[in-house]
Every structure is written in C-alpha cells, then in structure tokens.
C-alpha cells in the first residue's frame, strides 16, 4: 500500500460503460450513492440505448452511466471522464471521445479479444492505437470475467449468472481507486438483494475481491481522495432522480392541498418512471390508472380533476402532442391539471432515450384556439420535486392546466436532495366554492384573479354543467355571442398573466455588471452556471439569467434583459425560447443552440462565450 501515491482531487468524473445487460446503471448508482454518503456532492447522468438488448458487444447496445463527484458546486454530471470503465471494445469505441487527456481506462481484458474487436467494428487488434488514445491515457487492464469466475468458484451458480456479477468486480476496483470503503456498498446491496441471499452473497464476494485485487496488486496508478463538500447546508440528504422527485412532488402537493392524488398516464420513454413510482404509493392513497393511450391518460385525469382531486398526467413529446386537445378542454373548462412532459429527442418518435428541450413551443402554443396554459421548467433532478409541487399549487390555486417541462437528462439523472418535511412546504389552498355560494354559475370567478370557483360533484347546491363549449361570462350558459367570446378569451388570458404575482422574480447570477448575459431555461442551468462561474474566475464579466417560469414570465423579465448589452439565449433546440422571448421582450438576442440529444458540455459553452466576448 505504501508505495501507492494518493492524489487529492476537487472533483472527478467517472463513466461506467458496457453492454446494456452489463449492469452499468446499477454500478454507477451504487458508486455515486456511496460517494454522497462520504460527503461528496454528486450529479449523475445515465445514457442508454433505446434497444432493450441490442446484440452483445455491438455499438448499438452500449449503455453508460456518468457520475461527477466533488467537494463543491457540482452542477452537472461533467463533460469528459477522468476514469472510464469499459466492459468491452464497443463501449470503449462509443466513449473514447469522452475521456480526458491523462485519464484512466479500466477495461475487461477478457472481453478485448479478436471477436470482440470485430463486433465493435475495429479493423485491428489494437483498439487504443486505432482510437489514437494509447499515448494519452493510462490503461488498467483487468481480466474481469476470469477474476469473477474464480471469485465465485464453489458457488452453486451457472456460468452466465456468475458473469453477471462482473460489474461488482469493477465496482470494487473503482472503490479501491477512489479510497471508498466498501461497507456502504455492501449495505446498499443488502437493501437491494436482501430477499435473494444467494445473489447478495455472490455480489458481496465479488465486490470485496474486486477491492482487494486493486489493493493487493498495487496497480501502477495513483489512487484518489476527494474532499468532502463544505458548502451544502447541513441536513439529511439522499440522491434522487428527476422522475422520482417529480412523482414525490405531486404527492407532497396532494397532501398539502388535502386532496387525493390521481395520475392518468400511458407508458412512454423517458417518463414512465413517474407513473411507476406513483403506482407504488397506494399506501399514500395515490390512484394511478394506466390508460389505453395518451389521450385516455389525460382525459381520465381530467375526469378526476372534475371530480375534485389533484389530477396529473405524465408523458413525453409524442404523448404531449396527443394530449393537446384535452389540455385545451382543461383551459376551457378551467379545471386544475398537471401535465409533466419529460422531453426527449424529436420530432415523431425521434430519439426516445436522449435529451432535448424541443417541446417548449408545443407546450406554449400547441393547441387550437386561444389556449393559454402555465408552463414551467425544472433545473436539476432534485428540484423536479419543487417544480412538480409548484405546478400542482398553481394548477389548484388558479384553476388551470400547468405543463411542467423536464427532460430525459433530469428524469433519469440524479442529484443530491435535502430531504424536506411536509410542514416546511408552502400551503396549497384550492379555490373551492364556499358554503353560502350555492347556486353559483359555472363561470363564476374571483374578479381580481379571474380564478373560477371549483365546485365538487357530490356537494349539494353546486350542481353545474361544464364543458368545452364557450360559455356566457355571467350566466354560464352556452354562448356564441361575439362580444362575450372576446371577453372570455381575454379573461382566460388575464387569469394566466395574473399568476406572475405569485412567482419569484428572475435572478441574475454571476457578475451583475456583466458584458454578456447568458439566458437559459430548465435543465441547462447546471452547465450554464458552471461555464459562467469558470469564465468569471478567469476574469471575464458574464452573468446568467435562468428561467423556470416561462408562461407567465417573471414580472422583472424585461427590466433584467434590458440591463445587458449583449444577450445570448442558450438552449437544446433550434431557438424556441429565443423566439418566445423576442415576442415578449422585443430586442436583439444572440443564440447558442444544440440539438444532438445530449446536454451542453461546459467546454463548448465556455468556448462560445469566449468568442462572444472577443
């Protein structure tokens, strides 16, 4: 041990890659969780193929999990990996561009054979030279398959099952490399496999042997320690994915509002986890109906909203398209409804497992008629909780559909989450019709906020007929009167606009006197903030204004934008928010856009901003 050098790091990026059956997601999750327990900030991003099991060893089947851990300000899963674990040549080939110069490659020697090279489309038997990385990275070959086999010798398991544990050998090795005691990993495994003692025993054995292998062989690289985070507020934390956080945000809101939570949904990548998470929560009274299609998903939810519950639906881009008409009905009937769109690459089926921000204009405008809905977006996996809660609060208090935009990157990625208590969360007070208001018309509303009173079937004296036809402002009867229609259109618009009295003002982060204002929204916050901080550290003057509330915009939007001479709107689409912003706050906006199914990298952002400041 003594001859091994230990390097201290501020932060490190590790990427686990292999076949989609190699268990890389589990390995990555375990490693990031135990790092968090040791006091690191974490941010993770899984990157997996849409094929469930592509042919083994081929490029199409490569699944990856990246984790960024460090002492402070870990806003993103990181750009390039300091350490890449590649279970086969295909995984190496797909990820070779993503290894830092001087980085470490740990690979399974047993899977780096002639036939494996062929499957991955290598022309020679030296993939490192072929990829031009043999001089720039440190190689740690480990015969993971053979070592796993000998580790499990004597276990009553077939060879296939034995080899399935080789990810644990890799995890053990990584734990050694980063000086992470494996007790915590064993604790996690116990929780996961507690009911299957033989699987648990095997995994723990392989994990331990992997750790000892590194320790005993004195592999000729330095090991690393990473400082504990010193910036996070004290408290209890967990690591949570955006989809789970969103699901729990809805639950919290329903409890705060004193309503049942009802989800109508249909399976769609990458949003399905929200439905699955809520289906687990029957203990908290959550009702989930897995509908026959996307349209039924939202209309069943709208039925539940009509019946007086907190109703939500979860989907992704193609599903949002199918739900448009029903969102219009929620606008017209002025019923509360939360629509969570976990965006993915489009159009059409597009790139189901990849991330994009391309549904913004669909969320804002993708309906017939003048059909204003609230649109908000989350920044990080953990704050999907907050925004799902706020989406519910706004829907219930303002009697409107609210579309929450997250994306594949947030939905599947994880970040640290400070655990909340229900009594710390804001109150939610739906605008119920009150006793004494019996006989009130279906269009009756608060004249200031324009919020319609919510009447609940089952309660005597409030029987009303609602629907998608235009209604008379005063009597609530069906009406095609021209002047009345104008008034109703204006009223529905004013109701949404008025919500800007309840949302936080737009903040400027970074240098207040900046020469360049970076504008972003939603899940790009981490990358934009990291790039802006790095630029300011280098002596530039640059600021970030990041939007979570998109319709309505924060009240001070114009005032903030006009303060800066140069404004660049950065988003993972071809300029949808820029287009929207131009219509709301006319002016000159530069754009930086990327539509590759991947998040921004901090490096490319910095390069672009440097160019703009020249």
């Amino acid at each position, binding site marked *: 041990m003594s001859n091994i050098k230990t390097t201290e790091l501020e932060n490190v990026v590790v990427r686990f890659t292999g076949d989609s059956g190699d268990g890389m997601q589990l390995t990555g999750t375990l490693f990031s969780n135990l790092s*968090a*327990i040791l006091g690191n900030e974490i941010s993770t991003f899984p990157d997996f193929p849409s094929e469930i099991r592509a042919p083994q060893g081929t490029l199409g089947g490569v699944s990856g999990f990246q984790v960024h851990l460090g002492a402070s300000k870990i806003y993103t899963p990181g750009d390039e990996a300091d350490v890449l674990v590649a279970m086969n040549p295909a995984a190496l080939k797909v990820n070779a561009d993503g290894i830092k110069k001087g980085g470490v490659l740990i690979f399974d020697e047993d899977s780096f054979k002639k036939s494996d090279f062929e499957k991955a489309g290598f022309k020679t038997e030296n993939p490192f030279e072929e990829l031009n990385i043999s001089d720039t990275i440190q190689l740690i070959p480990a015969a993971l398959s053979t070592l796993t086999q000998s580790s499990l010798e004597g276990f009553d398991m077939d060879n296939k099952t034995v080899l399935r544990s080789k990810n644990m050998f890799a995890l053990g090795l990584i734990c050694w490399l980063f000086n992470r005691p494996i007790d915590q990993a064993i604790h996690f495994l116990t*929780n996961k496999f507690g009911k299957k003692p033989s699987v648990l025993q095997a995994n723990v054995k392989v994990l331990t042997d992997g750790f000892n292998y590194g320790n005993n062989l004195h592999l000729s690289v330095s090991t690393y320690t990473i400082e504990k*985070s010193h910036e*996070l507020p*004290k*408290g*209890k*934390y967990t*690591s*949570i994915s955006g989809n789970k956080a969103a699901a729990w945000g809805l*639950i*919290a809101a329903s409890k705060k509002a004193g309503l*049942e939570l*009802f989800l*109508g949904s249909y399976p769609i990548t990458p949003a399905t986890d929200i439905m699955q998470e809520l289906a687990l*929560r*029957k*203990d*908290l*009274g959550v*009702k989930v*109906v897995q*509908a*026959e*299609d996307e*349209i*039924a998903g939202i*209309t*069943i*939810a*709208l*039925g*539940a*909203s*009509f*019946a*007086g*519950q907190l*109703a939500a639906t979860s989907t992704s881009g193609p599903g949002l398209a199918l739900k448009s*008409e*029903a969102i219009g*009905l929620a606008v017209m*009937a002025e019923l509360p409804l939360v629509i969570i769109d976990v965006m993915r690459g489009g159009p059409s089926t597009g790139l189901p497992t990849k991330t994009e921000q391309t549904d913004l204009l669909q969320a804002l405008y993708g309906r017939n008629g003048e059909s204003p809905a609230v649109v908000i977006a989350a920044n990080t996996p953990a704050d999907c909780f907050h925004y799902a809660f706020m989406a519910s609060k706004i829907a219930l208090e303002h009697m409107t559909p609210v579309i929450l935009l997250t994306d594949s990157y947030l939905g599947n990625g994880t970040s640290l989450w400070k655990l*909340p*208590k*229900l009594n710390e969360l804001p109150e939610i007070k739906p605008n119920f019709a009150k006793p004494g208001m019996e006989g009130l018309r279906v269009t009756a509303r608060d004249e200031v906020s324009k919020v319609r009173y919510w*009447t609940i*079937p*089952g309660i*005597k*004296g409030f*029987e*009303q*007929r*609602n*629907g*998608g036809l235009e209604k008379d402002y005063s009597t609530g*009867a*069906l009406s095609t009167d021209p002047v009345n229609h104008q008034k109703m259109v204006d009223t529905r618009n004013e109701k949404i606009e008025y919500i800007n009295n309840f949302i936080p003002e737009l903040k400027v982060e970074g240098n207040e006197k900046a020469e360049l204002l970076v504008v972003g929204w939603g899940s790009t916050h981490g990358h934009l903030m990291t790039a802006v901080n790095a630029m300011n550290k280098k002596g530039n003057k640059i600021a970030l204004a990041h939007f979570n509330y998109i319709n309505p915009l924060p009240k001070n939007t114009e005032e903030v934008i006009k303060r800066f001479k140069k404004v660049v709107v950065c988003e993972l689409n071809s300029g949808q928010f820029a287009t929207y912003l131009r219509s709301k706050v006319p002016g000159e906006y530069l754009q930086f856009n990327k539509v590759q199914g991947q998040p921004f990298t901090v490096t490319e952002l910095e390069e672009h901003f440097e160019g703009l400041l020249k």
Partner: protein
Amino acid sequence: MDTSIIQQYTAKDFKSDQYVRWCPGCGDYAVLNTLQKVMAELGVPPHETAVISGIGCSSRLPYYISGYGFHSIHGRGAAVATGVKVANPKLTVWQITGDGDCLAIGGNHFIHSVRRNVDINVILFNNQIYGLTKGQYSPTTKKGYVTKSSPFGTIERPFRPAELTFGARGTFFGRTLDVDLKSAQMTILAAAKHKGTSVVETLVNCVIFNDGAHNWLSEKETRYDRLVILEHGKPMIFGKNNDKGLALDGMQLKIVTLGENGVTENDVLIHDAHCEDSTLQLKLAMMEGPEFPIAVGVIRDVETESYDEAMTNQIAEIQAKSKIKTFDDLIDSCEQWEM
C-alpha cells in the same frame, strides 16, 4: 343504506333550467325523458349524479340534467367518466354517447372502459348516422346506405355494438328502442343498478338525416311482432298476441309459434341474463330482422368486481400493511445520510 332517508324524486327534479335544443321529433327527447324518470326512481340525488359526454347531438344531454355534468371532447367521454368514477366512487356516473362518438373516434376508450368494468352507465344513442356534422355515415350505418359522405352507398361493414361489448368482456348489455318507453325504463334502471360498466344501446331516430331507420321496428301496429323484450327468468315470448317464442334448434335460435305443432310455453327458452357464458346472450343480441325479432331489454347482466371497487380495495389492503402512512414516512424510508 338507511332506507328511511331515501328521498323521493320525480323526473322534474332531474330537469335543468336549460332549453332542450334537439330537432323537433328527434328520438333523443324520449331517451332524455326516460333517463330522468329512471334517475328519479333510482333515488340518487342530483348532486351525486354526474353525467359525462363526448361530442355529438346526444352528447348535449348533460346540459339538460340537473346534476353535475361534463360535456367533454369527441370520443373521450368513456375516459373522462372513468376518471370521475375512480376519483369518487360514491358518485353515480352516466356516460352519454352516440354511434360516432363511442364507436369511431372513441372506440378505443369504449372497449377499454368495458374491459376494466368501471362502474359507469353508458347510454349509447345509435341512430346510425352523424347528425351534428349533417349526415355522414357512422360505424353503425348499414352497408350500401347513401349518405353525404357515401353518395354511392357505403362500402363499409358496420359494427354491432353488442358484439363489441361482448368482445370487450362486457358484464352488462341492454338494448332499448326510443319510443318503447316501458321496456326502455326497465332496461336503463337495471343498467344503473348494475355494478360495473353497463352498456345500453338505444335505437334512436334521426328525423333529419336518417329518418325512419328504425321505423320497421317502431311502428305501433307491428312493433311487438318485430321485437322481443327480454327479462331475466322469463320465457322469450313475443308477438302482438304473445304467441311466438324463441327456442333452440341445435346450436341455432328458431322462432316457434305457441299452439302450433304441439308447441307450448315449456318449449320456449327462459332468458338467463346472469349466465357467465355469453354464447346464447350474444346470439340473442345479434338477431336481425325481418327473420328474427330484435332483442330489447337486459340481455346480459353478470356481476363481477368493478374497477373502481378493486382500486379502493387494493388501496385499503396496501394501506393496512404498509409502514408508510404519511409523506414524512415516505421521506424517512429512503436511503439517506447526514451532510
């Protein structure tokens, strides 16, 4: 339920203040009146009654009932009604729909709500035409029929709502004829009392675009020769003079005349609407004129757990077992650490 507190309602209690706007002579009026009578007889107060519809002439009906109503979007009534019922199982939920709304644009929701057996009462107005869009053929329009969108006659094979309901494993199917009020009232009341999805196909006349589609059935003179009113436990006897009956000939139905060739009431089939096996019920539902009478009344009525009931029960069962009782318990249950 404490029967002493059941209020007595009249049909008037279920009339809203809205002026009914169907065409004069439309068959929908008769169904609306029947429905209001049934609601009164059922005794569920208006505020616990929710009437949900999609789009079409018949889907305007919720405006005319004094309970809670939701006139939703085309084809989606079944899904909205599912949400209403599952969210609040205490409500009595009606779904008003037509042959286009239910079987064309809403076909998917229809079969799935029937499959789930959500406790909703579906009144399917079948006039075999699109009325509100002014006369295009619908999924139930007879093959060859000339409409505005089939100027040379339709080339499509029509759906039979009964067959779809049975195919979707429906637990209740009834049929009524708009003008035959007594059997309609009996059938719709049975539908309301059935636990699970009840489908009632009501044959209605569109005076404007498909006038007389059911005339051969409706005409008073011959009506009871052409339809058989099915009641559970009663012999399948019909005819103006109650002299005809249905019997089995091998696997097929046949018509027998009482008193002829020694046929007596004992040779006539007794209707079993509660039979799990739907073979005979389907045969009855599929009878076509003029060879056979059209079956109205309750054709199938089989009890099984409804979806909303199953949901309530499962929640209760899980809640009794789970350690997680509150949101804070949920938070406490996750892997966590101090930082």
